[in-house]
């Protein structure tokens, strides 16, 4: 058994996989380490020397699929990719199609990864820093986000398109990215001070957004399952509106469901309009 560690880097894995393929090493004969716990049964052997005799040709589209699926955090993260690569390199192209059992898992991972990138674009919430602090840190906006897969690096350019010359930072428990208005600084291990700034930013202005959220909700259409399907609970704690969700559901269940209006509006004095006004 060959035991390898690619440090969860696709480029490293790709070089290792190329060598293995060149030497005709079967997927069952190799295992990649996953975090600190190694495969106890694997007796580590090193990678064979040189490129090996087998010159494998694989379509460029496959490498693209593998790179996307590599961002998926989960069991058999790297082994699965090698299995797909092995089958396609040996002439079985169905391994990269969604109709195949292995290909189906490959595509499921790609879908999860792209969904998680979409979650980043949707649910990151930036907090604007007050002017003095912004000047001191050279940062206008900070955000803290907890993605389930390794998508921060590949998916963050989106925010440079949206925010123009604004300077921003997204910190996660693993990695972090900072943009100074023209260039990115990506850190695989998020610096401690980035996390501090992002997690402790004071945000009095969020009350405006919470007000909007409360009032755009229509209690007569209460459907909490749909909310949970599209916006999983794990994101709520970093959303300014997250704490309102259970509260609004509760109010709607206790009778506010009879019409669409928020109770804060119902409590205010109304005004009918004369045509001549």
């Amino acid at each position, binding site marked *: 058994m060959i035991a390898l560690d690619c440090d969860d880097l696709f480029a490293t894995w790709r070089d290792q996989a190329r060598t293995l393929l060149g030497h005709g090493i079967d997927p069952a004969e190799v295992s990649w380490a996953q975090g600190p716990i190694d495969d106890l049964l694997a007796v580590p052997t090193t990678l064979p020397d040189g490129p090996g005799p087998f010159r494998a040709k694989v379509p460029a589209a496959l490498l693209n699929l593998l790179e996307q699926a590599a961002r998926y955090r989960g069991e058999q993260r790297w082994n699965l990719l090698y299995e797909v690569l092995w089958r396609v390199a040996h002439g079985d192209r169905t391994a990269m199609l969604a109709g195949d059992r292995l290909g189906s898992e490959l595509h499921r991972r790609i879908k999860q990864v792209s969904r998680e990138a979409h979650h980043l674009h949707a649910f990151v919430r930036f907090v604007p820093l007050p002017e003095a602090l912004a000047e001191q840190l050279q940062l206008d906006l900070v955000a803290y986000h907890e993605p389930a897969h390794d998508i921060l690096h590949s998916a963050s350019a989106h925010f440079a398109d*949206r925010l123009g010359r604004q300077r921003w930072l997204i910190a996660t428990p693993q990695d972090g990215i900072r943009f100074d208005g023209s260039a990115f600084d990506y850190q695989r291990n998020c610096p401690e001070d980035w996390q501090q700034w992002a997690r402790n930013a004071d945000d009095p202005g969020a009350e405006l957004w919470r007000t909007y959220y409360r*009032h755009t909700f229509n209690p007569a*259409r209460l459907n909490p399952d749909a909310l949970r399907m599209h916006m999983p609970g794990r994101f709520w704690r970093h*959303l300014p509106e997250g704490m309102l969700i259970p509260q609004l559901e509760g109010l709607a269940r206790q009778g506010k469901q009879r019409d669409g209006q928020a109770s804060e509006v119902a409590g205010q004095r109304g005004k*009918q309009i004369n045509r001549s006004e």
Partner: protein
Amino acid sequence: MQLIAKLGILADAAKYDASCASSGAPKRSSRGSEGLGATDGMGICHSYTPDGRCVSLLKVLLTNFCLYDCQYCVNRRSSNVPRARFTPEEVVRLTLDFYRRNCISGLFLSSGIIRSADYTMEQLIRVARLLREEHNFRGYIHLKTIPDADPLLIEEAGRLADRLSVNIELPTDASLKRLAPEKQAHTIRQAMGVIHRGQQAVAGEPKAPRFTPAGQSTQVIVGADATDDSTLLRNAESLYHGYGLKRVYYSAFSPIPDSPDSVPLAAPPLLREHRLYQADFLLRGYGYKAGELLGEAGNLALDIDPKLAWALANREVFPLDVNRAEPALLARIPGIGLRSVQRLVALRRERRVRYDDLIQLRCVLDKARPFIITSDYRPAQGELRSGLLRAQLREPQAPVQMGLWG
């Protein structure tokens, strides 16, 4: 009145419009530039409220003062609601603040009718102009179009906004007369025509200034009057063909506070709305005709989806061999969507498709099973009568809000 208090009133007043799409805009980026905002054709749902609907845009009214007295509308002049009015600068400030925070992808601005249709339209245009020209805002803008406004104003709005919409609200003349006496069906269609002609004038001219690049849409209210699904869908079909509409939104009528006797005070018909969205999607994406989906019936079935209903009514087309059938026909199999059709076609180029492959593709086999043949499967229910089959396949479905994209 403080900004935050106005926001509460004017967001509450705008929530009955179903549209919140931010998709379909051309590629724009602010990278390295002054200003803010990007679009790339994909919509983003930045949040969901407990009603299950997506929050993609800041959806507010400029004012909920209104001279009209539409019975279904919470803002009608005889309604006893608190009133407020934003200045254009206030809407701009809110849009930019929420956008920077990544809470929204743009603005959807509508308004009660104040002074005149032209004056109201001018105010909406003013906000869009401030955003685009003073603040270099490149995010998504959707403006409501006031039907009776001067066509020149509508054209001006079309050059600033990604999307314009003129709401039909009630699809028959009789209902409009009864419930929205100040509105007229023909001016609504005229406004749609102005927008459509503006789009046609720049179609195929890449150098021409953009005109509503994300298209126009409309909304009809479901359940405020007695209009049936057949009328709603045939109406939608004629709008898609006649005015090149991107989307028709169906909004189940939510009871309003201080409700007049002319409209129902009942829970919104969410399941009916859901079936209408499904049927509408079949019109736009699958090439079904409204007549095929409804036949003689006035309303869509609530207990089964419209695609399954069509298949049950057209058993002679089935079972279809997934290894041979044309893609357009494959898409008519219940439980097999457009994406699965593409994947099946890719797979059958490599080898014969088996039953197990459909499981891997995550097709809904409970629905598809009676209607398909694979290399290793033939339906035992082939002979089963449609009535029995329907009894087996019907399932009480919780209403799911969908169709807010596009």
